[in-house]
C-alpha cells in the first residue's frame, strides 16, 4: 500500500451463527470519502421442490482460505476498497441467510461487477458441501452446468 493505492481490507468468515447485513455493509463504509459505492449480495434458502432445509459442511481452515483467495482475486482485478464474505455452515431452514458478499469501491461499476464475480465464484470454488433435506430424502449437491458456465464466462472476460 502507498499513497496512490488505497488498501482493500478483506474479511472472510465461515460460521454457524447468523449475520447482520446492516453491520457488515456499514463496515465497508470505513474509508469514508473514498468509498462511493457498496454492492452486496445475500443468498437465502429457498423451498424449491419441497426442500425442508440445507446442511452446509465446511473444512475449517481450508474453507476460510478459499474465501480469502476469491476475495484476493477480486481485489487484484478491480480497484476495490473493501471486501467482506461471510458464509454460514450447519443446518439452515428456508428463509435463512446463507451467504453475504459485500464490496466497496470508488465507483458503482467496479463494486457491482466484483460483487457478481464473487457470487458466481462461490458457487463452484468455495470449499463447502451442500446437502438438501427433502421429505423424500437427502441429496448432496454439485455445481450446476449453469454455475460452471458462469465461472467460465469470467475467464473469457479477463
Amino acid at each position, binding site marked *: 500500500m502507498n499513497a496512490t493505492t488505497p488498501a482493500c481490507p478483506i474479511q472472510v468468515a465461515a460460521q454457524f451463527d447468523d449475520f447482520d447485513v446492516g453491520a457488515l455493509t456499514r463496515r465497508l463504509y470505513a474509508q469514508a470519502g473514498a468509498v462511493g459505492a457498496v454492492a452486496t449480495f445475500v*443468498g437465502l434458502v429457498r423451498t424449491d421442490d419441497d426442500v425442508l432445509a440445507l446442511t*452446509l*459442511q465446511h*473444512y475449517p*481452515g*481450508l474453507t476460510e*482460505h*478459499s474465501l480469502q483467495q476469491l476475495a484476493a482475486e477480486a481485489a487484484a482485478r478491480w480497484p476495490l476498497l473493501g471486501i467482506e464474505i461471510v*458464509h454460514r455452515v450447519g443446518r439452515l431452514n428456508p428463509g435463512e441467510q*446463507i*451467504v453475504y458478499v459485500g464490496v466497496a469501491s470508488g465507483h458503482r461499476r467496479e463494486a457491482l461487477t466484483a460483487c457478481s464475480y464473487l*457470487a*458466481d465464484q*462461490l*458457487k*463452484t*470454488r*468455495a*470449499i*463447502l*458441501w*451442500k*446437502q438438501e433435506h427433502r421429505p423424500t430424502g437427502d441429496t*448432496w*449437491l*454439485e*455445481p450446476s452446468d449453469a*454455475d460452471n458456465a458462469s465461472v467460465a464466462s469470467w475467464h473469457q472476460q479477463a
Partner: protein
Amino acid sequence: MLRVLFFGSLAEQVGMAELALDWQPGWQQVQDVLASLHRSHPAIAQVLAKRRGLLIAVNQRIGAATAAIADQDELAFLPPVTGG
C-alpha cells in the same frame, strides 16, 4: 500417524468422515498413501479411484497426488464443492 478426512458425499460413500493411519516409513507423497490404501482399505481405495473430480488437500492446502506428505500431517479428500 496420518489423519485422513473425507467430506460431503464422499464421507457417506466411504462410510466414515475420518480415518487414522499408522505412519509408514516409505510414504513420501500422497500417491504412496493411496497405494497403501489399496491393500489396507480396499473398499475406500475403490471409492477414491472411482470418484471423478476429487480434490486432495494436505494440511488444509489443495495439492496434487504428488504432494509431499509427512508423519502427523492431515490428508483430506474433497468431492466437488458448491457454496453460495
